[in-house]
Every structure is written in structure tokens, then in C-alpha cells.
């Protein structure tokens, strides 16, 4: 009447199948991780070498190689997800469907085993994803080591050389550039009042777009101090941001007003808690 004399549910074949599936999943992810490690450790020196060799200012060859490698890693991630969706999750559902009720003493042992299996498989997958993220971070760290300060100093020297070398195209009067321009600008001839159009060199124009990165390079020690603070100290972030914008304004003083608005916005965004 209370089921005392019922035979206890016993299914050793299922236990063996769970063990084997778990083992296969672990071996599969181990293999993927080995391939991932191998790929990343071999690719990092190659990427650094390519970054240094690439003469293109936007380092496009380096970006292409990085994108190719990211594609490879993404395929590995996809394989793991597909295997989980095709073999692990359906197996869990199929096995759980044939087990006796969870609240019966007979079914409890199997449900517990299945739950442990699920947690072990999912945890292993999370570990794999962590490894993937570490690999991607290692590959990405190979970019952005260009010495912008040297480029900037070179352009300052170049400007000193050319600033009084131009003459008016209309009357031939001497023109003197009062400051370093990064975009095409009208220069008025002091003799005939003609508007001459001064176009800076390509490298000088590029500097306009590199100014923020250069300012960030100059103040990265302040960002590091903020990032290392525990808990994160907003006053240190503000100190970093102010210094970074001050440096940026020193490089491109014409953008002072716009930059100030951008500074205020970044500061405001930083103080908003995103949940």
C-alpha cells in the first residue's frame, strides 16, 4: 500500500552512460583547449612581429591577421556550443524523462547523479569560455603599441621647418603659419589680403585623429592607479580624465570647447550606475 515492497529502481547502464558522456565531454573540451593554447601562444609573437613590420598607419595587415585568428577561435567556441546542445542537453532531458519521480527514494539517487553531471559539464564549459576570453585578450594585447609621442615630436619639428616657407600664390608675399594646423585652413596674405588655402601634410592631418590616443598614452599611469584602487575611487578617475583632456587640449587647442563638453559627458556617464 505504501510501496514498501516495490523493487528499487536500478539502472547501472544509465550510470555508465552518464560517466561516459561526461568523460567524452571533458576530453573534447581538453582537446579544444590544447588547440586554443597552441594557436594563441604561437600567434602572439607572429602578431607582434606583423604589427611592427606593418608600415600602414592603420595597421590593416595586422588587423586582418587578428580577425582571421578571432574567426578560428570563434569556430572553436561554436563547436563547443553545438556539442553541448546536441549531446549534453538532450542527453540530460532524455535521461531525466525515464527516471522515477524525483521525490521517490528510488529516483532521488539518479536525479542527484544527473544534476551533478549537469553541473560538472556546465562548469567545464564555463572554464573553457574563460580560457577563450584569456586567449582573445592575449591576441588583442598585441595591438596599440605604436609610439605616438615620437610621431608627434617629428611633426612638431617638421612644422618648425615649414612654417615660414610658404608664399602667397597671388602676390608672392611671405606667409607665416602662426600655429600648427591639422585641417585645411584659409591663410590670409598680409599684403594683398588673398585667402590662400593651406593644406597640412597627410601625416599632420592624421595627428588630429591620433591626439586622443597620444593623450591616453601620456596619462596611462593615472588610469592604472584608478584601476588598481579598491574599491574603485571615482575621484581618481576624474583626476585621470582631467589630465587626459588637458593633454589632448595641449595637442589640439582648437578643439578645447568641444573637448570640454565631451569631458563633462564622460564624467557624467561614469557616475551613472548601470544595472
Amino acid at each position: 500500500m505504501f510501496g514498501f515492497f516495490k523493487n528499487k529502481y536500478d539502472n547501472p547502464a544509465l550510470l555508465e552512460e552518464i560517466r561516459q558522456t561526461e568523460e567524452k565531454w571533458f576530453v573534447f573540451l581538453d582537446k579544444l583547449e590544447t588547440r586554443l593554447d597552441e594557436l594563441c601562444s604561437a600567434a602572439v609573437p607572429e602578431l607582434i612581429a606583423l604589427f611592427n613590420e606593418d608600415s600602414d598607419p592603420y595597421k590593416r595587415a595586422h588587423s586582418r591577421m587578428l580577425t582571421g585568428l578571432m574567426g578560428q577561435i570563434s569556430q572553436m567556441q561554436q563547436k563547443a556550443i553545438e556539442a553541448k546542445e546536441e549531446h549534453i542537453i538532450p542527453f540530460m532531458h532524455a535521461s531525466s524523462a525515464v527516471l522515477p519521480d524525483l521525490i521517490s527514494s528510488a529516483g532521488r539517487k539518479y536525479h542527484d547523479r544527473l544534476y551533478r553531471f549537469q553541473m560538472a559539464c556546465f562548469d567545464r564549459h564555463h572554464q573553457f569560455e574563460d580560457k577563450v576570453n584569456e586567449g582573445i585578450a592575449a591576441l588583442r594585447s598585441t595591438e596599440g603599441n605604436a609610439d605616438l609621442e615620437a610621431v608627434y615630436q617629428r611633426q612638431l619639428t617638421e612644422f618648425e621647418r615649414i612654417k615660414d616657407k610658404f608664399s602667397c600664390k597671388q602676390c608672392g608675399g611671405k606667409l607665416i603659419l602662426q600655429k600648427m594646423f591639422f585641417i585645411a585652413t584659409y591663410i590670409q596674405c598680409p599684403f594683398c589680403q588673398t585667402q590662400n588655402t593651406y593644406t597640412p601634410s597627410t601625416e599632420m592631418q592624421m595627428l588630429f585623429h591620433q591626439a586622443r590616443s597620444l593623450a591616453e598614452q601620456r596619462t596611462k599611469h593615472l588610469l592604472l592607479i584608478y584601476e588598481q584602487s579598491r574599491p574603485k575611487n571615482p575621484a581618481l578617475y576624474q583626476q585621470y580624465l582631467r589630465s587626459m583632456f588637458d593633454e589632448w587640449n595641449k595637442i589640439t587647442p582648437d578643439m578645447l570647447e568641444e573637448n570640454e563638453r565631451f569631458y563633462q559627458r564622460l564624467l557624467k556617464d561614469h557616475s551613472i550606475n548601470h544595472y
Partner: protein
Amino acid sequence: MHNTEKNNTQSYLDRLKKQAISQENYGAEIKYDEANIQVYDCPECGAARALGDGLTVCAYCGYQFMTVKLSDGIHIKKGNNS
């Protein structure tokens, strides 16, 4: 076996690197130009543009250099309209 896999990885990386280098850059190569000065004379009468007369219309023959109305920018100001 392990060495073979390493060789495969290396040869894959070599191929990828070669391909990345040889592929043509999207938007073509950067053309480096020197800094220069030019002047844009009126194509109708050949007169030069002077700031005092505004930059949008030729002060001599009325030729329109620009059809847009100038607004305040980094170097160009509203007052530069003819």
C-alpha cells in the same frame, strides 16, 4: 603527433600572415602628400578672394564660389559669408 599539430598550427599561421600582408588594403594605400598652399581664383574673372569681401561670392563679378551658407567652425566663421 604533438609535433605534427604544432607544425600544422605554424603553417596555418604562416599562411594567414602571408594572406594578411598580400591582401590589398580596403580603401587603397595611403597617399602621403606634403603640406601645400593653393589659391582659388574666380574662374569667371580671375580675381582673387579676399577675406574682407567674404568668401562665398566673387567681389568683382558676383560669381558664387560656394552655394552653402557658412556657419561657425574651427577656423571658418559665420562672418566669412559675402
